[in-house]
């Protein structure tokens, strides 16, 4: 069993291709560092416990002792028990410092990116898709992301249904997307590449396939992509968006405009019902503009593969 554990440690440290331990951005790097620090620290604890256990089991087996050996009555010892408490306390203090520092690191703009304006992307989930709105670029995608490298990213997460969790392991850890508040996840990509992303929080039947692709490209290429989308994609309309919200899997779609214009995020709406009505019902449509471009949508959706 300990053999197995050490095998695992070897695997962990030997092949760095596990997604979480193969970071491509500063936040994931911080987290991978914390994970490795904690593994090594905990390995020390494990070795101490295993060694003590092995020593006791080998030395004090009944078969190794004379029949008339009578084990002594030993109450605890203040010194020993202080050691049992003291060393773990020191370890926990050390890990607490690491933990608190890394908490603040992952909850703020990634290190080295503080001076730039972050790219804000709204990522909202519906059963079982992700809608990515780029207010700055005024475009929207479904189930795939294009992001520029070397720029801080600020994901604004919320959900049109069950709680989901936005997770791109190689860029950083996950955070929940919920219906009644917007959460913020700070990420950045150091290198270009295609990364795997998913909803990590169980959300019903279609959960397993609730994934998305992340394409990290150099800033110039990102601008090209935005221009291309603006030329080729059709605008997102409220009716079209309502269709998208229907449960199911959609593949990758691209639109101009964002749904935030007619269906804003629940950001400043703690407890109010106004912004929620649209998400799950069809009753509140009349006070919104009606878009009349039904027929075109299906054919002009910009499919991305």
């Amino acid at each position: 069993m300990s053999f197995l554990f050490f095998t695992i440690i070897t695997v962990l440290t030997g092949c760095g291709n596990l997604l979480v331990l193969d970071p491509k951005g500063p936040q994931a790097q911080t987290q991978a560092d914390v994970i490795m620090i904690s593994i090594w620290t905990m390995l020390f604890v494990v070795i101490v416990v295993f060694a003590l256990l092995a020593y006791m089991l080998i030395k004090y087996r009944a078969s190794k002792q004379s029949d008339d050996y009578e084990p002594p009555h030993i109450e605890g010892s203040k010194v020993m028990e202080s050691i049992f408490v003291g060393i773990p306390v020191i370890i926990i203090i050390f890990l607490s410092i690491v933990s608190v520092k890394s908490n603040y690191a992952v909850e703020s703009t990634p290190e080295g990116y503080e001076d730039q304006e972050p790219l804000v992307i709204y990522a909202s989930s519906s059963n079982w898709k992700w809608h990515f709105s780029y207010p700055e670029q005024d475009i929207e995608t479904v189930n795939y992301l294009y992001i520029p490298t070397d720029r801080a990213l600020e994901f604004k997460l919320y959900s049109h249904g069950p709680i989901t969790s936005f997770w791109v392991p190689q860029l950083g850890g996950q955070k929940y997307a919920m219906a009644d508040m917007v959460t913020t996840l700070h990420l950045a990509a150091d290198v270009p590449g295609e990364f795997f992303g998913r909803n990590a929080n169980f959300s019903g039947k279609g959960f397993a396939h609730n994934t998305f692709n992340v394409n990290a490209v150099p800033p110039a290429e990102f601008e090209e992509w935005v221009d291309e989308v603006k030329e080729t994609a059709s605008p997102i309309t409220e009716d079209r968006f309502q269709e998208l919200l229907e449960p199911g899997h959609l593949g990758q779609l691209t639109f101009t405009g964002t749904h935030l214009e007619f269906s804003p995020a629940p950001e400043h709406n703690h407890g109010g019902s106004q912004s929620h009505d649209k998400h799950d019902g069809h009753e509140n449509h009349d006070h919104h503009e009606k878009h009349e471009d039904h027929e075109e949508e299906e054919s002009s959706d910009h499919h991305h593969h």
Partner: protein
Amino acid sequence: MEFFERFAIPHPSPAIYASMVAIGLTVIAIIAGLTYFKKWGYIWREWLTTVDHKRIGIMYLISALLMLFRGGVDAIMMRSQLAVPGNTLLDAQHYNEIFTTHGIVMILFMAMPFIIALMNFVVPLQIGARDVAFPRLNALSFWLFFFAAMLFNISFVVGGSPDAGWTSYFPLAGNEHSPHVGTNYYMIAIQIAGLGTLMTGINFIVTILKMRAPGMTLMKMPMFTWSALITNVIIVFAFPVLTIALAMGTMDRLFGTHFFSIDNGGMDMLWANLFWVWGHPEVYILILPAFGIYSEVISTFARRNLYGYKSMVASMVIISLFSFLVWVHHFFTMGQGAFVNSIFSVTTMAIAVPTGIKIFNWLFTLWKGKIVMTTPMLYSMLFIPIFTIGGVTGVMLGMSAADYQYHNTMFLVAHFHLVIIPGVVFAMLAGLTYWWPKMFGFMLNERIGKWAAWLIAVGTCVAFFPMFISGLDGQARRMYTYSEATGFGFWNMLSFIGAGILAIGFVLIVYNIYYSTRYATRDIGADPWDARTLEWATHSPVPEYNFAITPEVNSSEALWDEKKKGHKLFKGSYQEIHMPSKSGVPFIMSAIFFVFGFAMIFSLWILAIVSLLGIFACLIHRSFEQDHGYHISVKEIEETEAKMGGAKG
């Protein structure tokens, strides 16, 4: 027709139809068997109406073992589905139902009754009591649990099982996203079982505080009794939170309220908070009695007193307090920010300190001991290393920044199984093997027992270690399938093999029970393990009055004192013993609760009101009833003692 549609299974499959037939046949077989062998009277008199803590303990035990197999079958189905990429053995809906019921059954209908079984059987004996403080309430606790478990399990064939995960997060668990009745079963069945558990909590606190043998001060209680006391305090403070959460969830689903809904001000995060304010202490409700069992077993088979008794008690008290201060670590990723996460990260890791004290105290109990590797001891020695790995990964998960990467992944699944299985399941099996002779008057076969222990330990490692890897590689939990391209296939195949090994281990335990029942010698005396605490000072199996004479003690190892230090446990002569009378009301009332629960689940309001009136009728009956119990005469005691191999003391 619409009326009947709600009882149909939303996603029927041959497996479910087969189970329906199997359940039907089993029920018919039981009824026919009882009738043929004319055992109805026996069952009613000796079991269904009993208020004896030992029999109630054994009934808890049988139920827990049954549920262990139900939950185990769920586990095997999950691991089979995931064994290869793109498997189509189960569809998403089935998989979702199975992991949901696996979690609930294992935690609430297997682990809980298992610890309560051992508490019931052992605690009154360990403190030298005749029974618990409220024997009839104890019977009610059991029957409420039992009928709740049955109610939960029929969801499988009537109406469909819950499918929103054992955490049942809203809004997923709300009507909009979980339209069939499955989640109603969750809300109602757990509520009924929880009532029973709360009563157990009150009952055992009073029992332990008020019914200890003369001379047994709090700091002279055996460690298992200490763990039971602290556990029950946690139960009393944690379960009401669940009661409210479930009540709100029930109202959202049945009465259209907006506690956790998306609209009209509902707050999904409130459910998550309430659930885990109960849920985390619940983990310690399970693990502390397990720690108590290990303390008894390790001390017995190291042939030494427990090292650091006081720090053992102190660490449990600290753990019980901290258990209420860490719940946020179940959702570090909910967006509460670095400050809140930092606080809960530190409190979470801090729990490692008292837990560490316990591990080191056990290790130092072995020091200068004379270790006999019996089956219970083998479980304990396998527990320490595996639990340590589960525990240190818990510290890793407690580092909230890193938790963003572990959360909702197989890494987490690996962690909590590697804590709960060695921590709780090994302890239950150790306790079962250890106290089996006291319960039934013969020992389980040691050779088969050790084989089972090794298989279960190896199976646990093979099943769960690979999940650390696939978790770090991005495998989320609760996915019913994955593609080959992910590369998770190898690790999941390993887990499947581990699950198979585990299954063989559990089958061996059943075989051991069968084998030992048939072949084991009944001539084992009162103290076959050469143990140290009071329960071994009376006969095996235990007579209904437990001790013919109330023992007097002056340390936490009263029997050891008698054996080694010439302490006299039993002074004086036999006296008439007062015993509580049997009652069928707990059984009947719980059966009505079952009907009430069923009616609520299916919104059958008239039936619900009628059964509620029935419940009140039982309460009124109890209030007006005058029952002073009965007495066992000195002559009867003498006869029993003579039959059981000579008077004690």
